């Protein structure tokens, strides 16, 4: 899994994940998100999932942990452009409603 942390744009930071979001990568994604959210200026975290090729339950768990951490810090979290497979797994765990999921082609900078 390859994780890229974007620059801070007025309090919004984008984190892009590429590759398999599985047991081997879940911890890395959580650490990267935690690192971003430690910065006081971060008000909104966008996790771009468009290049995530595979996700398993541990990957879903990582997204939930990031969501819980963001919630406790008062940071808004958006998941952007999950693939159909990724979205299906979020949906089957009944988590689609607790995430702000955007198809974000244009609207989110």
């Amino acid at each position: 899994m390859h994780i890229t942390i974007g620059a801070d744009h007025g309090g919004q930071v984008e984190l892009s994940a590429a590759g398999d979001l599985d047991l081997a990568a879940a911890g890395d994604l959580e650490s990267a998100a935690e690192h971003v959210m430690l910065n006081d200026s971060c008000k909104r975290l966008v996790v771009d999932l468009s290049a995530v090729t595979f996700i398993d339950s541990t990957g879903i768990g990582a997204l939930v942990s990031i969501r819980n951490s963001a919630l406790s810090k008062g940071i808004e979290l958006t998941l952007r452009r999950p693939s159909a497979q990724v979205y299906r797994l979020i949906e089957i765990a009944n988590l689609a409603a607790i995430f702000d999921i955007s198809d974000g082609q244009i609207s989110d900078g």
Partner: protein
Amino acid sequence: MTSNDPQGASAHDASVSDPVAQDHEERLRRFESLTELSVSQLPMEELLDELLRRLRTLFAVDTSAVLLLEGSEFLVPIAACGIEEEVRQGVRIPIGRGFAGHVAAVGEPVVLTEVSSATVYNEILIRKGIQTLLGVPLFDGETVIGVLHIGALSERTFDEGDIAMLRFAADRVAAAITSRRADIDRAAAAALQQSLAPRQLPSLPGYQFAARYVPGSKYGVSGDWYDVFALPGGEFGIVIGDVMGHGLRAATIMGRIKSALRAYALDHADPAVVVHHLDRKLQHFEPGHICTLVYAVLDPATGLIRFTSAGHLPVAIVSPAAPPRLVGQKVGLPLGVDLTVARTTNLLTLEQDGLLCLFTDGLIDQRRTDLDDALAAIADILGNVRSTINRADSACAALMARMVGEKEVQDDVTILTAAR
């Protein structure tokens, strides 16, 4: 074994005339003695004791010690040579404080030439009369897991060569610790899994229960479990669950969830209420853990099942007169997410000659198969389980044969079936 180095005495008789070259030669040989030691099969404690003894000789110092990170706040000495009391007294050094605490905090080698209560946290080092200390961090990847330090009762200098050599020794120590820890973690998690798996599923006239559990090959056991237990009023609790993560941590959390669920099941008849209490307990005592599960209560007299799902995969139900169904309506959130979202209890009937099947996501090879295709395949397999002496077991066998076959399973695979 004494603390002297077997090659130490012969160095002085070596025919190399240049003292610098001789010194290098000697150091190289001792490097080798560290290398050979760390790959040996000694138990952890003996390995570290021997390594520390050799380091003392190698650097001609008086003390050597290995401290490991306990949680994220303290360093705890686990082996020491020349300052054994710091292990015996259970010294705890806060990260960032004193000498070792500083080494751990900066993640770089540190040389200390003024040992006093201002620079050192551990009184034992001062009382010993240590004058000079050299410490290096122990790394697992990029994470500091501890500190290795050596100390001299006399004033002496540690040069770049000494630092490089102690770093080399630290790599060996860290590798030994990490690999032993991983072994211990795996073995303990496997033992825990095994001890928690029901030895025998309850026998219930008119019903059969069967289960399979295969630990994943890639990361060892994870947090899957299943459970079937009798409830006081004659009903039966049926559970399948998956704590996200792997190894000892996931297995430990799983054990706690499993027993807490049983406890709440004794007090509350409604599965949704049981799971709500369980979620509250998990979020209070083990925040940060996520778990999906299905908890079902079967009334054997009627075959009526009340069940609730916490973000788990659907339940498969086979009735003689209808095609197999995957029931996943009104699924609640996984445990560990949000207590304010209400849970619901769903109803289902296990008819005569019917089959109920619960499973975890390890059964589905999601890298190669579409989730919905795999679920359809599971329903199809269950619909074709023939009537045998033990249909519940045949169903498990058929699922394992068709869904897993000869593949090596990466994730834990757990199946629980009930036939009526």
